[in-house]
């Protein structure tokens, strides 16, 4: 037990030890300063030349948006057709079949938007071509998209007044060549030398020790497992993701994968502070996020290490904690830790089944995804937090009777309206989606669809409701983990979550980018004694309170019907 706790403390400590210098490096790379990876600049020049882009051409926020949406739309179309016709395409040693149109629709959106919700199983649902040319490709480029937009956000607040936010293509390219690819190579090599397969051989057939005939799925997984974590994507090579012994073979790889998914989101915050010359602000943001993270982690640990009270009653020994859906090589502590990090940073990979975790653990997983800004996804985490900051500045401004300002730019009706809209869209999508699903389940259970709604759920009662709530929340947060008992590969869920995924990704990018663009071109007001300072402890507390209140008001009723009700039903 002690070694398990020590293990997660070491994992978090190592995460910070790596992320902080990495943040300093990011700041230099994107400011165009000298860094040791500058030997790559000929490669980048070559890429710009082939692509016909001028990396020095400055774009305003609308041009960033157009570039981002164009390239994302291209991936959507291209990927959709590859998934639909993968059976006819090469690199399919296991002979996996084509995706149905609604599954391809869901899958391609899911990977383009960095969510990686998977309504298929990796072993049987996709070919090696789809895995590498679509899934893994999108894991790189969707993360790079998030980072690229975050960098234009940085640039907006570096200058006093500016409409120039850098060049999207350049940010995008650098995010891959200087950040994602080098880190992926290192992580993939360590994984490959610790048991994760990397060869292109297909399924293996053998006779087990006891004499049964078994087949074992394999494939070049190591390369993908690295980027799936570094890019906070989370989509696994195998169906059970990082719970699969070939995707996450040991405690060492588990630590590495857990560290990989946290370092870029944390480094982005550090980089932000250095880039705009406001380190104290970055540390304040980091502080709020870390407190929020710990407040989710500690009770999760308590709830999982305590075991299942119903199994306690059966009389077996839960010395390690709750073990359903967990792997012995990680133990409940590392699985609980993972369930928190994967929901706060929007990775959505899992090393144990969330559906089988304790009710309160499910509550914290859901809350983490609803808030979606404690570190948050690659690049976009900071943008989500920025929206909370805008709301906090606005409310604080009202409270003290001053004109709200954000980093020297006056915050006016237009920006606040956008922020309010972005804040409202999440509860709307989550509530409306869950309500629609619940209504269909209860009122049209026997509808003659590809899967009858009455057959969706793997668990009865409150927990069944949680399965639907989780699926919708995960889609909106672009997280991608699931209460996997839900029968989700059917027209209803593929279309519903596909649509939510699109809104859940692009509105929280477009909104902050628009606010940024609008603020950046306003006249800079120097700080004075009358300025509301946003890098103080008081303001940090204010932001934290805003995050809590907004989310509690939005989601408490739904949470009460799901995990909270289940919790009370179990202790009675």
């Amino acid at each position, binding site marked *: 037990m002690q070694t398990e706790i020590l293990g997660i403390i070491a994992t978090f400590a190592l995460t910070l030890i790596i992320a902080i210098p990495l943040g300093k490096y990011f700041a230099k790379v994107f400011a165009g300063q000298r860094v040791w990876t500058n030997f790559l600049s000929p490669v980048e020049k070559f890429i710009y030349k082939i692509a016909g*882009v001028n990396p020095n051409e400055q774009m305003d926020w609308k041009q960033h948006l157009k570039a981002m949406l164009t390239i994302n739309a291209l991936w959507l179309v291209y990927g959709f057709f590859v998934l639909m016709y993968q059976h006819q395409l090469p690199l399919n040693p296991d002979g996996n079949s084509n995706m149905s149109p609604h599954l391809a629709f869901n899958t391609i959106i899911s990977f383009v938007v960095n969510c990686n919700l998977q309504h298929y199983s990796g072993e049987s649902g996709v070919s090696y071509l789809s895995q590498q040319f679509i899934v893994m490709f999108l894991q790189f480029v969707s993360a790079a998209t998030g980072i690229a937009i975050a960098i234009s956000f940085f640039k907006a607040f570096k200058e006093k007044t500016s409409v120039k936010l850098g060049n999207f293509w350049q940010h995008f390219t650098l995010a891959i060549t200087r950040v994602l690819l080098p880190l992926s190579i290192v992580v993939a090599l360590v994984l490959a030398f610790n048991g994760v397969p990397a060869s292109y051989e297909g399924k293996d057939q053998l006779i087990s020790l006891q004499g049964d005939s078994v087949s074992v799925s394999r494939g070049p997984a190591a390369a993908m497992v690295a980027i799936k974590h570094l890019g906070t994507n989370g989509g696994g090579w195998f169906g059970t993701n990082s719970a699969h012994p070939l995707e996450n073979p040991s405690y060492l790889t588990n630590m590495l994968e857990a560290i990989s998914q946290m370092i870029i989101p944390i480094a982005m915050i550090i980089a932000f502070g250095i880039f705009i010359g406001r380190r104290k602000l970055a540390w304040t943001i980091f502080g709020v996020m870390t407190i929020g993270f710990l407040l989710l982690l500690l009770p999760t640990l308590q709830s999982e290490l305590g075991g299942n009270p119903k199994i306690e009653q059966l009389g077996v020994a839960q010395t390690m904690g709750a073990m359903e859906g967990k792997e012995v090589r990680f133990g409940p502590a590392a699985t609980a830790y993972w369930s928190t990090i994967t929901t706060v940073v929007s990775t959505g990979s899992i090393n144990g089944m969330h559906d089988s975790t304790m009710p309160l653990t499910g509550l914290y997983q859901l809350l983490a995804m609803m808030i979606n800004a404690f570190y948050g996804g690659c690049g976009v985490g900071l943008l989500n937090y920025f929206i909370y900051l805008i709301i906090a500045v606005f409310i604080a401004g009202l409270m003290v009777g001053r004109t709200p300002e954000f980093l020297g730019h006056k915050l006016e009706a237009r920006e606040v309206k956008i922020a309010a809209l972005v804040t409202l869209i999440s509860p709307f999508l989550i509530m409306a989606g869950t309500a629609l699903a619940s209504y269909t389940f209860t009122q049209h259970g026997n509808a003659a669809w590809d899967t009858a709604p009455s057959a969706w759920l793997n668990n009865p009662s409150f927990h069944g409701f949680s399965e639907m709530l989780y699926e919708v929340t995960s889609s909106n947060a672009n997280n991608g983990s699931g209460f996997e008992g839900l029968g989700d590969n059917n027209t209803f869920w593929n279309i519903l979550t596909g649509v939510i995924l699109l809104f859940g990704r692009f509105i929280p990018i477009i909104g902050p980018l628009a606010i940024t663009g609008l603020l950046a071109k306003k006249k800079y007001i120097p700080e004075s004694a009358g300025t509301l300072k946003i890098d103080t402890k008081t303001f940090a507390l204010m932001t934290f309170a805003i995050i809590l209140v907004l989310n509690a008001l939005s989601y408490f009723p739904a949470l009460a019907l799901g995990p909270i009700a289940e919790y009370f039903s179990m202790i009675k």
Partner: protein
Amino acid sequence: MNKYILPSIKLTAVFTVILCVLYPLFISFAAKLSKGEGGGEKVILNGKVVGYKLIGQSFTKPQYFWGRPSAVGYNAAGSGGSNKGPSNADYLKEVNNRVDTLLKYHPGLQKSEIPAEMVTASGSGLDPNVSVKGAEMQAKRIAAYRHLPLSKVLKLIETHTEKPLLGLFGPEKVNVLALNVALDEIDR
């Protein structure tokens, strides 16, 4: 809009070559130097491949150590957990049945000696490990069926216990397949 479409297509093409061809091929070639040569490390007994070190197998015969319950019957062509919620009554009944089965095959065993992982399904359905207690619990049965002294079976478990990483991080565990291969090697 043309201004954005062409760079989008070209960048997608360039990065497809770098990220989907060069990068994974490099990792794949480098992995040839690893223990399983990138195809997964195999377990060999009497010159025959009997399994993968990391993939758990179904053991139902009484002369073998048993692994954890699996929602997919240890079929490694796929993977999966039970996804049963903690308060699901049917599920709890199933767990209780597993407890009864274990008690039946291990006369004298107390419920409190059964560690939870022996009656709960793993996340992957392919968990290769059990805890040390999960193996020790079965020692008497193995000794009886294999006509081995109990101390020898316990000793075997001890030598096959994998310590936490660096002795510090994570749980102790036993690889069931390795343990059973060792048992078969004694018999040889």
